């Protein structure tokens, strides 16, 4: 096989290789992963669709600029460890990103084959291949030096220097990236997490049916083997402050506390029984495993008719969770149209396949209760699309006097989040921007305090897993440079 890619545009269009999924009627009865992943043959077929462009445009679409051509090239040769090593040099959680990145607007959105799908069969399924490589590699790892291989793709990591201490606050993807990177260089990292489980949104927000918790646990276990210490139930700003961490000998502190404060809509009836933030609903189900109540103790509110307000990933996750918990009718209430929904395309498609109903072009005006203050219905304002706004999306405008009522006994509000002030208020000298997020140097991640770094949603506002990890990696590189000098 010649490696030089002559102008070998595929003769006939080979369509994207489908990913096997659990059929909709079956999957809404369980909480198991929906997309089942490629087989070796599927992966080979899909990898061979990549034409190994001289100037691969796909790479510009990836927020961490993964050498996509490189890893697919390895895969074309059947070299899974080689492909993993390429991925791991850019991305600390490829098994996660392969599953949750909004590929259609990132890497795959830029793939040359996506430009003319009728002729080419569509963009290379980069995310699915990434997932295949990471899962296959992990499945082949066994004991021994596996942890370092998993974290770095290299055979061995450095011994830990116990005096080089770094602390991370929050245990989401940004902090996990910092911890993994520094631990592989022999730096002693301690991660402080407020909740009782490690992983951030990956464990309390994104449901099992989209991202099995086992995958996050596998990564965390590998980090533990490399000497990373996880302290759960520690709230930064309450149990420990940034200053105390330095007093305790830390050379640098990374803040990756996410943007977890739920926003409400400030419409009448929002505190009625049956009205939840998506954060509460998903945290009960995912962190508290309420889908397995009463085997697990955390209860969850159930209803026949459910409305989820919002159009992003969080709304999709809440709606599909409600279906799995036995709701008869679940509607997504969104003020624009399907085309403007910020959710990952695959999630929206899966939600519709599963029977989620879309109530488009309407916005809640009131959450109406019965005489016991239990939610009974929602009054919505009908909308139409006007001129594009700053984000380029057409602005929804109310149609004066045109309202309707949607019956529902459970409403889940997924209209965005804000930064949580607990740690920020307890950290003197930490500069915040107008919206209350941390100001950090875009190159190094350093905040207004020397040797205090920050990254992920607490800097950018709610964004993506891969961008949080990218920020973590930039900060980790800078920290390593400062601590190890030329050695890094």
């Amino acid at each position, binding site marked *: 096989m010649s490696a030089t890619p002559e102008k070998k545009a595929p003769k006939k269009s080979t369509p994207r290789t489908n990913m096997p999924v659990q059929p909709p009627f079956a999957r809404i009865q369980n909480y198991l992963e929906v997309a089942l992943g490629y087989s070796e043959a599927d992966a080979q077929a899909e990898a061979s669709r990549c034409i190994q462009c001289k100037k691969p445009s796909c790479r510009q679409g990836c927020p961490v600029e993964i050498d996509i051509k490189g890893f697919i090239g390895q895969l074309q040769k059947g070299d899974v460890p080689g492909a993993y090593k390429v991925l791991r040099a850019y991305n600390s959680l490829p098994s996660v990103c392969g599953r949750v990145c909004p590929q259609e607007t990132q890497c795959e959105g830029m793939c040359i084959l996506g430009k003319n799908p009728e002729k080419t069969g569509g963009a290379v399924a980069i995310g699915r291949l990434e997932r295949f490589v990471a899962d296959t590699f992990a499945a082949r790892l066994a004991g021994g030096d596996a942890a370092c291989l998993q974290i770095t793709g290299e055979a061995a990591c450095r011994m830990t220097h116990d005096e080089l201490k770094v602390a991370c606050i929050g245990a989401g993807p940004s902090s996990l990236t910092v911890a993994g990177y520094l631990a592989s260089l022999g730096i002693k990292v301690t991660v402080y997490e*407020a*909740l*009782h489980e490690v992983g951030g949104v990956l464990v309390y927000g994104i449901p099992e049916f989209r991202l099995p918790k086992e995958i996050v646990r596998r990564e965390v276990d590998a980090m533990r083997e490399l000497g990373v210490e996880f302290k*759960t*139930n*520690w*709230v930064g700003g*309450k*149990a*420990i402050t940034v200053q105390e961490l330095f007093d305790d000998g830390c050379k640098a502190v990374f803040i990756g506390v996410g943007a*977890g*404060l*739920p926003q*409400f809509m400030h419409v009448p009836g*929002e*505190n009625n*029984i049956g009205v*939840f*933030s998506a*954060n*509460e609903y998903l*945290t*009960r189900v995912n962190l*508290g*495993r309420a889908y397995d*109540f*009463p*085997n*697990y*103790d*955390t*209860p*969850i*509110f159930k209803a026949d008719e459910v409305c989820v307000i919002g159009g992003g990933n969080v709304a999709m996750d809440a709606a599909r969770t409600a279906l799995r918990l036995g709701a008869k009718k679940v509607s997504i209430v969104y003020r624009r149209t399907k085309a403007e929904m910020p959710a990952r395309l695959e999630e929206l498609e899966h939600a519709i396949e599963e029977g989620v109903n879309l109530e488009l072009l309407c916005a809640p005006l009131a959450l109406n209760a019965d005489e*016991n*203050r239990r939610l009974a219905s929602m009054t919505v304002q009908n909308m139409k699309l006007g001129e594009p706004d700053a984000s380029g999306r057409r602005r929804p405008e109310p149609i004066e006097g045109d309202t309707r009522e949607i019956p529902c006994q459970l409403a889940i509000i997924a209209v965005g989040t804000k930064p*949580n*002030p*607990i740690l920020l208020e307890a950290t003197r000298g930490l500069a915040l921007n107008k919206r209350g997020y941390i100001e950090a140097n875009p190159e190094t991640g350093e905040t207004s305090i020397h040797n205090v770094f920050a990254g992920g949603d607490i800097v950018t506002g709610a964004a993506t897993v891969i961008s949080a990890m990218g920020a973590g990696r930039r900060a980790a590189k800078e920290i390593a440079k400062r601590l190890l000098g030329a050695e890094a």
Partner: protein
Amino acid sequence: MNYRILEKKVLIPGQTTLLVIDAPHVAKKAKPGNFVILRTSEKGERIPLTIADCDPDAGTVTIVFLVVGKSTAELNTFEEGQALHDFCGPLGRPTHIEKQGTVICVGGGTGVAAMHHIAKGHAAMGNHVVAIVGARNKDLLLFCNELGNFCPEVLIATDDGSQGHHGFVTEVLKQRLEEDKDVSEVVAIGPVPMMEAVSKVTKPFGVKTTVSLNAIMVDGIGMCGACRCTVGGETKFACVDGPEFDGHKVDFGELRLRLSQFRSQEQESMQLFQHKCHCGEGK
């Protein structure tokens, strides 16, 4: 595993228990008014309990709880030497304590335990603390002796008259407010109806009234909104904005309803637990 139980004291058999937990980092930071969130097991629910006392030198935190459902019933089966699965704190805003003169601290039921820590804080600040403690009968009274260690006055009310005033704490409070015009603050901690009643009594006197809201919580750090309460017409998160609020502004009716949100599942969980216990399953 840490968070070991160093001491267990049954205050009212089958009902109220005191545990002293080994948690140095929590003890170091805990202030009156703070609470913890704990889980008994890997499958447990996160439940909030007030820090009733702490000893930073010994590294211990004391909690006192009433058995009301599955989690507290399970907690009550723990013995000295066993460890809790999770123990997170200190959480919530500490009580605002300043030198201000006379402070009346009213406690009902298990709420007396939480009130005890706050009363201690006020006494340490040099305030004249009057404790008013209520229960159904004298056998259910809690913390009277401990309160006596730093409160010059401990007034008692029992529903059946078996000790102290025959009637409610609110009657004792009202009488006291009528006699003493110099009371600068009333703190009330206990069942929701009791805090509501206290707030009604103090209103005409115009005295500052602080109550501690026991809303249902999940994370305890402001990330879920489960604990939202209406105070002065605004939505507040009890875990981070509170748990203490101005009793004259709290919508107690809403709080009571929100506390019943999961009633049917709680009952299911409790029945299952009792069933298991009676079968002698486990050890």
